[in-house]
């Protein structure tokens, strides 16, 4: 299943420091949305508010609304654990669990939650998720080997397999390719194209070509200066952002004149 994200006037804080100010946007299901912008403009911070990972940092808090198919993530009584089961996340640096084998890593979402699963169901889930992450053929003979023994690109795809194994509705990716070589990057871009059929995907990227290749819509964030909050400058179809943006700053950024 894939869900719509609506953000209404969101402010994000680290203690007293406002890192992101007044963001409102709507992300459609079954699409890929790219967040671009210079470093420090709050892309990661904003992304992490979409599955309530932001508040894991001491002193961090959020004002505003994030609706997922109409349900407010920040409403009273919302359990962040349930939110995170619906909104998966892939991090910048591949982070497979070092104590677990490849297979256990894929099953982590199930096993860590103490849910029981029959052996055949587990094998099916492992195969399905690894196929979904385009990794099955490379690791099917060594599922019991440690996940940390894979190459960086394979580890990142393992992390994607781990994220989709809990069948979320939305997948957030924070610069998933920035630590990878071009071949692995292409593999992950192809994968996103596939995943788009089932998930709403949001990706932060520093790579303009990547944003224009894979995304349907693009959001450009910017900051006025250090210590200032990041703001959403422009949000439109990727094509529009890259060919005829409305805002001068967007044009400067995508054409490489700054940032």
């Amino acid at each position, binding site marked *: 299943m894939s869900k719509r994200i609506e953000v209404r006037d969101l402010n994000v804080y680290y203690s007293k420091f406002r890192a992101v100010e007044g963001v409102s946007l709507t992300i459609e299901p079954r699409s890929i949305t790219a967040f671009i912008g210079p470093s420090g403009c709050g892309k990661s911070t904003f992304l992490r508010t979409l599955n309530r*990972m932001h508040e*894991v940092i001491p002193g961090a808090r959020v004002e505003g609304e994030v609706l997922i198919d109409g349900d407010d993530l920040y409403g009273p009584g919302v359990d962040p*654990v349930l939110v995170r*089961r619906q909104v998966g996340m892939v*991090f910048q640096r591949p982070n497979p669990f*070092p104590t677990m084998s490849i297979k256990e890593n894929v099953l982590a979402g199930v096993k860590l*939650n103490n849910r029981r699963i029959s052996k055949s169901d587990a094998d099916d889930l492992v195969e399905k998720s690894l196929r979904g992450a385009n990794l099955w053929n490379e690791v099917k003979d060594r599922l019991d080997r440690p996940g*940390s*023994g894979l190459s960086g690109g394979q580890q990142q795809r393992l992390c994607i397999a781990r994220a989709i194994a809990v069948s979320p509705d939305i997948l957030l990716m924070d610069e998933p390719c920035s630590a990878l070589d071009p071949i692995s990057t292409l593999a992950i871009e192809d994968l996103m194209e596939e995943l788009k059929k089932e998930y709403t995907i949001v990706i932060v990227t520093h790579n303009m070509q990547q944003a224009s290749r894979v995304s349907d819509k693009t959001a450009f964030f910017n900051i006025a200066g250090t210590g200032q909050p990041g703001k959403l400058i422009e949000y439109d179809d990727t094509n529009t952002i890259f060919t005829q943006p409305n805002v001068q700053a967007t044009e400067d950024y995508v054409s490489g004149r700054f940032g």
Partner: protein
Amino acid sequence: MSTVAPIANALTAGKLPRYTPAWVLLGSAIIITGIALLMGNPSIPGIVVVTAVLFVVLVYLLSLVVEGSRKAKDRLMTSLVTLAFLLALVPLISVAATTIGLGLARFDLEFFTTSMRNVTDAGGGALHAIVGTLLITLATAIISIPIGILTAIYLVEYGRGKLAKWITFMVDIMIGIPSIVAGLFAYALFALIFGPGIRLGIAGSIALSLLMIPVVVRSTEEMLKLVPNELREASLALGVPKYLTIIKVVLPTSLAGIVTGSLLAVARVIGETAPLLIVAGFTQSMNYNLFSDRMMSLPLFVYSSYSQQGADPQQFLDRAWTGALTLILIVMALNLLGRLIARIFSPKLSR
């Protein structure tokens, strides 16, 4: 092919032959020994010390002339570090050699199968003390390790603000408690409950716990801090609650270090004498029950054998040394066990 003149390379620098330090060492030793013999009073420690000094100076000067000042400094530091290492080994080897040499005299079956009950001179053994030490230490570990680990988990994973600061402060203070004070505390506690004069194995465990808990807290804290935050976030992002993240991701990742730290803490308290003297008491007889009567321990066995020698002192001294040897062996066994466990539990590495 005719020989070609070596091409001048701007990156070359002078270099001493590989075995120069060894030859210099040999030379210094011979010279110094010679001088000592000439002067007529060869004392071996003196020769060793002067040789070491001469060696360090000679290697430095040689290197300075041939290799330049950066390499010379490197050689100087290498010599000094090596010397410091050797110096640190001296007491270690000396203690081991003395204990083994003197402890082997009574390292026999009788020593490990009998107590000192009704023994006045020859014979007798330390079974009562070995059992006492093992039981008291086991109880100490059972009390301290859970409390220590849970405290560390609180401090690293949950603790923010005043309470955590206070706990850290208290742990710091506890680390500095003299062991005799821990013993007096346990004695006062048990005397309040059971009346004065009480001596129990478990009271010894309580006293030792005071010494062990802060060590476990500290080492576990360090290990938990080493777990990368990314792993916690990876787990939380999968929709795993925080407590399960701690139990199933953080603890397994740091388990090897926690086990090693806890065993080192055990090694730290297993040789304690003073608190046990006060609260566990002193006895010649077997006692398998932590909760009644006095209980002997190995450090106390060593101490009392030495301090209360009977008609034939040699018998008592032999028993004391064998007791010390046994204690060292127990600590060594614990360390080996710790390494084994650490290897079994450490995160699976690549390949």
